[in-house]
């Protein structure tokens, strides 16, 4: 039980990344707007990520603590983007 709890806490401390995956239905302009709103990115940076999603199939939008990563993924799902959080490493 203690081991499980410790592992869980360690998991929380590991860095996570927020990944957005390509979706042929979502408009490019819409995806750009969502990145600007959710992450506060300037338009150019949001467009770079949008194009990366479009051409490479995925883009890492953010990395850091799990709680915040989960919050970002929740916001992205609220905008109907295909987003996941992944453990780094």
């Amino acid at each position, binding site marked *: 039980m203690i081991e499980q709890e410790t592992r869980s806490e360690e998991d929380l401390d590991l860095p996570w990344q927020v990944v957005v995956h390509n979706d*042929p*239905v*979502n*408009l490019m*302009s*819409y995806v750009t*707007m969502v990145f600007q709103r959710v992450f506060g990115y300037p338009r150019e940076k949001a467009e770079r990520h949008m194009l990366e999603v479009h051409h490479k199939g995925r883009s890492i939008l953010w990395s850091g603590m799990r709680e915040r990563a*989960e919050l970002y*993924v*929740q916001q992205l*799902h*609220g*905008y*109907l983007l*295909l*987003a*996941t*959080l*992944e*453990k780094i490493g």
Partner: protein
Amino acid sequence: MEICRREDKLEISELDPFLAELLRQIPASANPEGTPTAEQRLFSPPAGPREREICAEWKLYVQPELRRLFRTATETVAADLEQLSGNEKTFANRTLRIPAKHADAWLSALNQARLVIAAKYNFTDGELCDHYRSPIGSRRDLSLFQVNFYGFLQEFILREVSDCPGKNSD
């Protein structure tokens, strides 16, 4: 059909009965019930299958919140579309006025509808990029037209939202 912004409203005017009907179908089209692929698309997993705990918690706590968020948006759109209710003949040259503060709800409902329709018909990338497909000869063609028409409306709303930042929030 004409589409423009007038003060704090987005106006879609000179609507013919066909396009008016497509607009009226937005809330129903956004409903994924009965189509597992559409349900899976609207409520996609937040992490890979190895992250069982995250996915289970998500289903329990986040998914109901997302469901509520999506339903609120389609209800707002359905209320705006009441302007188009009535006799079919009265649709000719009708105007739909959307309050600018409802722009986010419209973006969401249009997106839900596009995703649900695309999941239902399993459109290919090629079909989704073919904006000049004609004529409409089947239910599938009509649904593809619907996806593109809703996308056109989204583009217009997005342009208005980005031109007037801050004016779209409730």
